[in-house]
Each structure stands twice: as C-alpha cells, then as structure tokens.
C-alpha cells in the first residue's frame, strides 16, 4: 500500500517502543509457568484421554502436582519420574503420579535426574517430530489444492453441534468460503480445561475439543479435494487454555487460531499474568505448526467508539506483533485484527475506513491481516445490513486484506443461518471480483482526508505506545486504554494457576521451540 505518508522511521520507532513495552512481560513469562502450560506439555507427550466424569487426564495430573506444590519443576519432569517408575503409557504415568503421596515426590540423585531428563528430551523430540510430520501432511494438501486468491473469505459456523457444524461448513465451502471458523460455546474460555471428545451441545457455539477439531478437519480435507481448493479451518486459542488448544489445533492440522496476547484479559476478565504467560507457549506452538494467528483488536471498537479509539487498534497491533515475533511467529502468520466498525450514521465513513485499513496495511505490509466486518452498528434491517457489509467487502479487497470475515446480514439477531452465509459469500465474491486491483488504480492524495486521518490516528497510536512505554502496559490496561475496559494485574480469573518456576524447572518442548 503506497502512500499515506507516514515515514518508515516512525513505523520503526513504533516497533521499537512495542518491543520495549513487552520486555518486562517477557521477564514475567521467563520466571513463571501455569497449569495450562503444563497441561500442554503433557498433551504434547500424548496424554489426551479423560478420566471419570470427563475430566481430562492432563487436568488430573497437573492439579495433583499443583496441589502438592511441585508443579514448579514442570510437568515434564514428573512425567519423566512416572516413566522412570515404570509407567507403560502416558495414561499409566498419570495414574502412578496421581496416586503418589507428597513424600514420594522428593528429589532423586543427580545422575538419575540427568538420565530422566535425557530420556524425556528424547521423547519430546519424537513428539515434536510427529507433530511436524502431521503439519507437513497439511502443507502437502495445500500444495495440491491451492487456495483462492485473497481476501480469504472467512465465515463462522456456530450450531453448538459438531455434526451440524460439519454440514454447514461443507455447505459454506461449496458456496465459496475459504476459511471456516467454528465458534466456541460462550462459556468455554472460562473453563480451566479442554473438554473431551465430540460434542453436540453448546451455547452460541460448539466446544473446542481435539476430537471436534479432527472431525471438522477431516470433513474439510474431503471438501478441499472435492472442490480442488484448500479450505482452511480455524478456532479459538483464547481463555484459560490458550496453549492446550494451540496444541490440539496443531495436532489436528488447523490452519489458523484466534490468539491474542490481551483479549482474554480485556474481554473475558482473565488474569493478566496468566494470559501473558499462556499466550507465549501457545504462540510457540503456532510458530512451530505454521498456524496463522488472528488477533482481536477489532473487539476494542465494539466496546469503545471506533472513531475515537481507532489509534488503540494500531498501538495494540504493534504490541501484539512484538509478542508474536518474540514467540517465533513470522510476518505471514500475523493475522492482526482490525475492522470496519465506525458508526455508519457519521459522514465520510468510507474514507475513514479506507484510511484505517490502509494505515494497518502500511504498518504491517507483510502480514495477512484479519479484517472484521461491521457488527456493533448492524441493524435488524437485513437489507441495510447487507449493503453495509458490502462496503466492508470493498475495503477488504482494496487494502489487500489476507483474511476477511464476512459480515452477516442477520448479525444483530442471531448466529448465522446457512443462507446468511450464502448471501454474504455470493456478494463478497462479486465485490472482490469487481474491485480486485483497485488499489493499483489510484494514488492517495497527500493532503486528502484519508491521508490526514491516517497521520492523525498514527500520531495518537504513537502517543499511546509512549504511555505504555513510560508507565508500563499493565498501568495502561489499568486505565482502560484498550476497549475502554479496565483490568488490574492481580484481578480476574486464573491467577491461582500461575506458578513461579523452580530453578530446575524442566520443559523440553520450550527448549526445542526456543532453539
């Protein structure tokens, strides 16, 4: 995206500020682990069953270690201990560990200790190898059936029942969808475990479970072959189980994940420390698995005003980018979120929206970006809503968004009907076809409203980055700088799951992923 007349140097400065803003958070991340990070370690070793009442085995084991106060050495270490005690299988390992008394958890000789770690490291390498092999299958399918040109048309399914979701996902793919998102049940982000198995009941969405992922990806693989066009699948790596879901998704070959360094804090009232720590491991897994993350800055302007708070989106994107890069993600994996949300009752909103989308493109030229449609100001007048969405389709193709969530004409009423998706896909295909290449047709006037607005928004974003840099991101969040939502460092859910690492904390996966 040429133009917009913001210096490269200024953009570099924004990046530098963001990096320094995340520095103290990385100290926190280095020093601590969480119950869900440790559960993810166990899942990586292959523990994926559930015990009585559907409690996942990894929860049984980690809760046990946590209540015994020994989780600070790392679940991998205890997994090694169980193996060393002769556990025949991961399941057996859990059983052994969960029956141990606190006394049995005492230290070993350095030599035994060393062997144990070596053994566990080897197993971790094997597990990562297996994961890479699975990912390469996905990549092969993608190579065989190339995707449509961008913007990739992204629609959600949200029936609550994975089998109904499959029907609808197939239908959406046939109608032209490039990406299917299975919306989660509304309560899931607050669950401190990942439900197990195929599920058929959920509110406002379907539970994210490894089995549901598998079922859906299998259906979409089939559909991709049939349509000779690779269909991507995405889900949510947010809430209290960011990293575990990232693992399930990686293992089941998902293509993208909603994954944001701050969304859980702001919109789910999840504890700040917990989220910062969890997001890191989750992103390390995404980096390994070639998963594109989708961040959630678009949410800020559903609670705050989209015109007044446009700069908060930009500032947050730089911060999210820094978190992501430091977790090993590449530019092409950064579906930074933004959206077409300015109140349509205002004048010149198309200019404002173009300005904002061009600005995001200018700041992140190599990222796919994730563009959200209007939602907050949608009306129950479906005809108007449809017209409104169409303008977002135009901005998306104009500013070369990689991933575009399609607006639904019934947004203000209910999760989409099958036909709503069809209507959205058909119109978006028309707009994309009609306008593709339009960005090459015009030069933005340096003194026009679009350019001026972009400079103004960028300027305010720099100020906000300056504030976060000076006072710390924690303080900025405390002041409600993002989405008008205020959160404190020790408030919110899940702080009890944060554990300071012992000096001999052991996590062979992190060793591999950070290598």
């Amino acid at each position: 995206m040429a133009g917009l007349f913001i210096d490269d140097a200024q953009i570099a400065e924004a990046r530098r500020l963001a990096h320094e803003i995340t520095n103290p958070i990385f100290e926190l991340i280095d020093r601590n682990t969480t119950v869900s990070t440790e559960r993810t370690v166990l899942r990586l070793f292959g523990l994926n069953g559930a015990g009585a009442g559907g409690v996942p085995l990894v929860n049984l084991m980690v809760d046990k270690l946590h209540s015994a106060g020994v989780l600070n050495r790392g679940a991998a270490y205890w997994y090694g201990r169980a193996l060393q005690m002769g556990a025949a299988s991961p399941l057996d390992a859990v059983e052994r560990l969960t029956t141990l008394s606190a006394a049995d958890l005492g230290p070993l000789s350095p030599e035994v200790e060393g062997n144990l770690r070596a053994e566990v490291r080897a197993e971790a390498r094997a597990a990562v190898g297996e994961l890479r092999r699975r990912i390469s299958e996905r990549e092969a399918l993608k190579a065989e059936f190339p995707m449509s040109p961008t913007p990739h048309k992204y629609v959600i399914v949200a029936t609550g029942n994975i089998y109904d979701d499959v029907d609808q996902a197939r239908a959406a793919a046939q109608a032209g969808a490039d990406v299917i998102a299975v919306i989660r049940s509304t309560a899931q982000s607050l669950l401190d475990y990942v439900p197990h198995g195929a599920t058929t009941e959920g509110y406002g969405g379907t539970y994210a479970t490894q089995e549901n992922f598998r079922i859906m990806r299998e259906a979409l693989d089939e559909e991709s072959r049939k349509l000779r066009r690779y269909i991507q699948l995405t889900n949510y790596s947010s809430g209290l189980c960011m990293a575990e879901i990232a693992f399930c998704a990686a293992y089941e070959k998902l293509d993208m994940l909603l994954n944001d360094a701050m969304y859980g804090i702001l919109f789910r009232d999840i504890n700040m420390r917990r989220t910062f720590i969890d997001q890191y491991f989750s992103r390390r897994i995404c980096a390994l698995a070639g998963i594109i993350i989708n961040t959630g800055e678009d949410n800020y302007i559903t609670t705050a005003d989209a015109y007044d708070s446009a700069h908060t989106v930009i500032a947050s994107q730089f911060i999210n980018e820094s978190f992501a890069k430091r977790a090993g993600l590449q530019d092409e994996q950064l579906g930074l979120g933004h959206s077409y949300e300015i109140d349509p009752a205002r004048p010149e909103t198309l200019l404002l929206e173009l300005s904002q989308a061009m600005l995001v493109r200018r700041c992140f030229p190599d990222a796919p970006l994730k563009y959200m449609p209007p939602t907050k100001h949608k009306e129950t007048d479906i005809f108007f809503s449809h017209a409104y969405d169409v303008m977002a389709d135009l901005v998306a193709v104009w500013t070369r968004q990689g991933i575009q969530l399609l607006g639904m004409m019934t947004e203000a009423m209910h999760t989409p009907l099958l036909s709503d998706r069809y209507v959205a896909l058909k119109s978006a295909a028309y707009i994309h076809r009609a306008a593709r290449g339009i960005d090459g047709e015009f030069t933005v006037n340096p003194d026009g409203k679009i350019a001026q607005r972009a400079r103004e928004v960028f300027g305010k974003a720099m100020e906000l980055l300056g504030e976060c840099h000076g006072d710390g991101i924690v303080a900025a969040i405390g002041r409600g700088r993002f989405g008008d939502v205020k959160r404190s460092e020790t408030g919110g859910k899940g702080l009890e799951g944060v554990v300071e690492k012992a000096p001999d904390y052991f996590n062979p996966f992190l060793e591999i992923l950070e290598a």
Partner: protein
Amino acid sequence: MAKEKQLLRAYGDRRDDGMVQLSFTFPIPLSERAKEAALQFVKKMGFADVKVHSAEAVADHFTFFIVYARSTLAIDFAEIDVPELVVQKMDFDQVNRVIEKQIGRKLVVFGACTGTDTHTVGIDAILNMKGFAGDYGLERYPGFDAYNLGSQVPNEDLIRKAIAKSADAILVSQVVTQRDVHKDNSRQFIEAAKAAGIHGKVLLLLGGPRVDHKLATELGFDAGFGPGTKPSDVANYVVHSVLRKQGKESGSTHYQGEPG
C-alpha cells in the same frame, strides 16, 4: 360496544394486494421438484399467487428460495390492544426531582450481565455515565446510586451484593440467546432471588436484545426491556414502581414508554 373493524392487509404496491416477501432454505438439492416443493410449502401457509422467484443451490444439498406471494389474511387492527398512556414520561430533571421530593433518598440499583454472557455494552448503556443515544446513564442521575458489576457475573454474586446495599432494583442483562440460554440463566436468577428472599420485594428487571416485557414477566421478573431501551426508560420505570410500592401512586396509571 363492539369496535369498528379495521382490517389490515400487507401492502406491496397497492392497498390490500397482500404482498409478502419470504426466503427460506430446504435441505435438498436444487431441482424442479425442489421448486415445486417450495411453491407447495408457501401455498400451504395460505398464500395465493405464489411466485418462487429464485431458487439457488447454496450447496450440494441445500436450496435457498426467494418467494413473493400474496397473503389473503387480514388482521383486525381495532382488536390490537396496547395500554393507554396517561402519564407523560419524565425527563432527567423530573426524575431526580420526584426522587428527591417524593422518595427522599437515593434509589439504589445494581446491574450486571450474568452467567457466561460477556456482553457489557447493553448494561453499560443503561448504567454508565455516558448512557445511550444521547440519554444519560443512571450513574449520572443524582437520584440514583448505580452499581455496575460488569459481565460474566454469577447470579448469586449479583444478588448478594445487591442485598448488602439494600438495592431497590436489580438489573440483569442477557444478550446471548442461542438455544434459549438467556431463559435458562434468567430462571436460575429468579430461583436464586427466591432463595435469597428478595423476589417480590426488590424490583427485578431483565433486559437485552431478545427480551420483551412479556417474556420477562413470564420468567418471574417485574419488567423486561428490549432493544433501543434508554436509561431514562429504566429510570422512569424504577421511580414509578417504587412510588407505587410506597402507595404514592396508583397502579392503574400508566406512563409513556411503560413496559407492558
């Protein structure tokens, strides 16, 4: 006295032509038979002159239809009742003045979006300073003490905190409605209110985009508020209800915008 009939029919491009637009999906592939089935379906609803204008294969096994047809039905508009308005809606200043003069103390209201619902924009619009569509929120009224507990609040927590401050009214917001989760959660709230002994004592208000007064009262609330509610509507309701409870106003007077 029997009212004079006032028959109402749909208007397409002339009076009483009965024109209605419909769209729907059948889970079958597109075919001539599918179109015929769509036609029969709409006829069965009692429509005449049914035109299946569009039938598109939205997927291998789904066909989406767009139909225009004439409904022969009429509604007697004279029969449609709504309560008569006798009292004017009070504005911001009037509300505060009435509270000061007739109640003599601040009214305490507690609100939250409860259960697993995280949508705060609606309850914030009612309670926070800023308000909604240029109408100030209850926080800004000198006559109200407003507490907004935010979202994802367990029903029991909301009730407990409200009781602790002797709240006059509790405001529950419910936005996610899929599979009627709002109804389930609202019922659970009413159970909890009964258990806490405040049902019938503290005013219980339910609100949200799919809420209306009828639904709310069926669920056991005192009143329900739907889309487009303004904070001043809620202020009026609370003040009038308190006055009625205190015997200072008759229950048979109705005011503009009163849920009903």
